[in-house]
């Protein structure tokens, strides 16, 4: 896997795409805050907000940090660390029964 030379499958996006992504990020943030204030959405607050922030997270990592366009090894390393970190958080929360609160 790591033997192949560095390939740039697609060219990096340009400033226009960057600004478009920033607009999307801002829009999602506004939606997040709005959701927080809407009383009717209270029961579904956790899944909605986790989903929205995951989208923001993914957008920054894939486009601003260029993981979508870069060598697969970088993605493997980062996603590996991320998955391990999430597993640790979830496992600890399960051990301390923090989901019940």
């Amino acid at each position, binding site marked *: 896997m790591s033997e192949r030379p560095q390939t740039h499958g697609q060219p990096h996006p340009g400033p226009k795409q960057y600004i478009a*992504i*920033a607009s999307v990020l801002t829009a999602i*943030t506004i939606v997040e*805050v709005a959701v927080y204030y809407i009383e009717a959405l209270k029961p579904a607050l956790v899944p909605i907000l986790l989903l929205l922030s995951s989208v923001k997270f993914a957008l920054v990592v894939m486009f601003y940090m260029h993981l979508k366009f870069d060598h697969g*090894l970088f993605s493997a390393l980062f996603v590996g*660390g991320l998955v391990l970190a999430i597993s640790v958080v979830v496992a600890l929360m399960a051990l*301390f029964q923090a989901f019940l*609160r």
Partner: protein
Amino acid sequence: MQQAGALGHTPEVEHTTTGLNHRKLLMWVFLASDCLFFGTLIATYLLYRGKSTVGPYPHEVFDIPLTSYSAFLLLMSSLTMVLALAAVQRGNAKWGRIWLLATALLGCHFLVNQGWEFSHFVTEGLTPRVNLFGATFFTLTGFHGAHVTLGVFWLTAVVVISLLRPATMSAKNSLNVELVGLYWHFVDIVWIIIFTVVYLLQPAPPLHG
């Protein structure tokens, strides 16, 4: 073959097994490792979430509009960061510097907000000592703030060094900007999580009785 994080040094053409740059690989391994660092801090916050026995509680002190503004500032700083990299990769060092400084200033603004928030909390009676919420909140956001501070220093250093040695901001050496960029975006995505998990998903207020 051997350029060890030398910011000011024109790298020789590297020959690596994977064809990837040593320093960039190092940065990604570091970020993977930092995931575990912040993961553990966030876990600490979540494990003690809603377990404070005395106030102040989150819903009493949080100022969501202010924090939303801070979150917006960091998102914008990520935009200016990536624009800086794009400019440098095009060979435009002048705009590279401008966008980098803009990023650093947005970071400073974020830190000022955080400082204001912290001091406001302390006057409200929330300190790391007073309850678990205070302890976990200040630790988590404090370490994030420390990462932002380090990032601001790094951004400034890249700009200053590029003025002393223009070659460090040539298109060929855009890696110098790319690396600080990766770090900066990482700090941003950590805030994306903190903003949601800490600020927007507050624990239910304790029942009095």
